[in-house]
């Protein structure tokens, strides 16, 4: 009578042992490299590190200095405005285009297969390779081509600060379609044929079908990208490092670029605490903004119904 429950208990123990054994590494890795790193980041924001004497003291100065820098320093305010503008421009231009392109591919319009491959291509090419090619193309080839074919004398697009920023927005939009178009068109392919067919029978134009059927049906996918995208205001390098290395002009720098360059170029770990403090202040801003955007989109975004 007791043999079956015993076997059952034995099996449960073996399952638990296996589970703990396989789960051990991922959990330790998470505790060290996520919890540990973020805890260290928070602690570093409140530390002053003296490398020469190998001492660490607790202080609020980093947070105070970081706050003053981010709210009072003209260079940092400029970086904030460029970060926000870059986010708005790349998303304001890139998202509608990505949706139109995805719809084009989903509807299997002429050359849809070719364009699907082409739109994904920048995702598999190294950022440094593409940036190098584009940099020399707009600096060297375009002025010569304009002069030769249109008799227009122009300087390289990256020499002038205004055309440089416009080019950077154009470039970031151009290379940003790969994953989004793939995800949107895959999501659209999940829309039932009956629904699209009903819109056609009702006489809806392609655009109306896109607006009233496809867009609401893929809105959960779009919302995921929009919500996750909020943090990029503070993390997006805008590919500046690939174009300029550590020497991007002041008028085009973003927060993501600034933090990366300062961290990568730090002479010692004594420079890290102020950067950690800036990161924490940015996180304090970006978490509630992300939550707010999520709630607003859930409340006012188009519904599948």
């Amino acid at each position: 009578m007791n043999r079956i429950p015993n076997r059952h208990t034995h099996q449960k123990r073996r399952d638990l042992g296996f589970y703990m054994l396989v789960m051990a590494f991922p959990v330790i890795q998470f505790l060290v490299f996520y919890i540990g790193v973020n805890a260290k980041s928070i602690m570093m924001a409140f530390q002053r590190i003296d490398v020469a004497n190998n001492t660490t003291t607790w202080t609020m100065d980093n947070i105070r200095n970081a706050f003053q820098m981010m709210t009072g320093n003209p260079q940092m305010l400029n970086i904030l405005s460029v970060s926000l503008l870059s986010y708005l421009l790349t998303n304001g231009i890139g998202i509608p285009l990505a949706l139109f392109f995805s719809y084009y591919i989903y509807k299997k319009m002429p050359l849809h297969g070719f364009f699907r491959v082409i739109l994904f291509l920048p995702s598999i090419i190294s950022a440094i390779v593409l940036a190098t090619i584009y940099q020399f193309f707009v600096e060297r080839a375009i002025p010569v081509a304009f002069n030769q074919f249109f008799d227009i004398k122009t300087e390289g697009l990256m020499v002038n600060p205004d055309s440089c920023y416009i080019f950077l927005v154009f470039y970031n939009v151009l290379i940003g379609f790969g994953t989004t178009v793939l995800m949107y068109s895959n999501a659209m392919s999940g829309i039932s044929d009956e629904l699209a067919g009903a819109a056609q029978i009702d006489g809806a134009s392609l655009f109306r079908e896109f607006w009233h059927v496809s867009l609401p049906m893929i809105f959960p996918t779009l919302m995921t990208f929009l919500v996750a995208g909020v943090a990029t205001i503070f993390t997006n390098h805008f590919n500046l490092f690939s174009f300029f290395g550590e020497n991007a002009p002041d008028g085009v720098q973003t927060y993501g670029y600034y933090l990366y360059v300062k961290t990568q170029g730090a002479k010692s770990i004594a420079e890290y605490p102020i950067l950690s403090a800036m990161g924490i202040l940015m996180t304090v801003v970006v978490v509630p903004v992300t939550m707010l955007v999520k709630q607003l989109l859930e409340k006012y975004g188009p519904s599948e119904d």
Partner: protein
Amino acid sequence: MSLKNRKTLQQSRKWSFFKAAVLILLVIYAVCLFLPLLWAFITAFKTQREFRLNIIGLPKNWTWNFSTIYNEFYVPVSTQTGATEYVNVMQMLINSMLYSVGCAFCGTLIPCTTAYLCARYNYRFSKLIYSVVIIVMALPIVGSLPAEISMAMSLGIYDKIWGLWLMKAHFLGIYFLVFFNMFRAMPAAYTEAARIDGAGNWMVMLKIIMPMAKNTFFTVMLINFITYWNDYQTPLVYLPSYPTLALGMYRMSYITINELSTVPMRMTAAIFMLIPTLALFACFHKRLLGNLTMGGVKG
């Protein structure tokens, strides 16, 4: 709606303004993408002298610059003793392979096995892990790079390729959800039958489940491989002694050797770097562009 009206509607939908406008935008996109790539390819076969005289035209004499890049391009690195060592292209290629394959494998294996445990073992801890993945995805944390470097240094894994394998071997991110939903959707009958036949947990995971998951595993690993192959910013920060090809490409911008600092040589290096990823894409584009969804790979 009558058949005639339906046909008229389909005709009018065939070439609407919307469709034409999107097609024009896509054609402009393709031109903007291909023209610089084509120019780079042509420039890679010019000498500097010819490039000065003929920036946008086809080369009169096609010059093979790839051997110059392969033989003469070195990246200087500082050793722990303070001396300078020079890393050649072959060594950069080996570093790239070790970094990309190792990180891609670890970064795919861990989310896959963790997702398997969470999907198939109904413990409270599994639900906790799933919630952690969702929360971490929703809550962005900015500026933890200094702490991450500091942590790597204190653990003794800074400037070690295997150290980056460890750092990238996490279960967080979208691929956990891809694997989780795939394992959830797999019928339990296979594993139950195997268990009745006496298979243990390891046997079920390695011989029954993983072969069924190999398509998704390979696709995710391929995507990860391409990401790491192209990544130069992580090696720049974490691997100062082991430059990869992508990092070499970045370092080339600051090279002072006259022969290599020319535009044709830079374009040659760019094309050299581009070839492996384009070859991979040509071989596996259907898999990469396939329906990798939150439910695994369709078809």
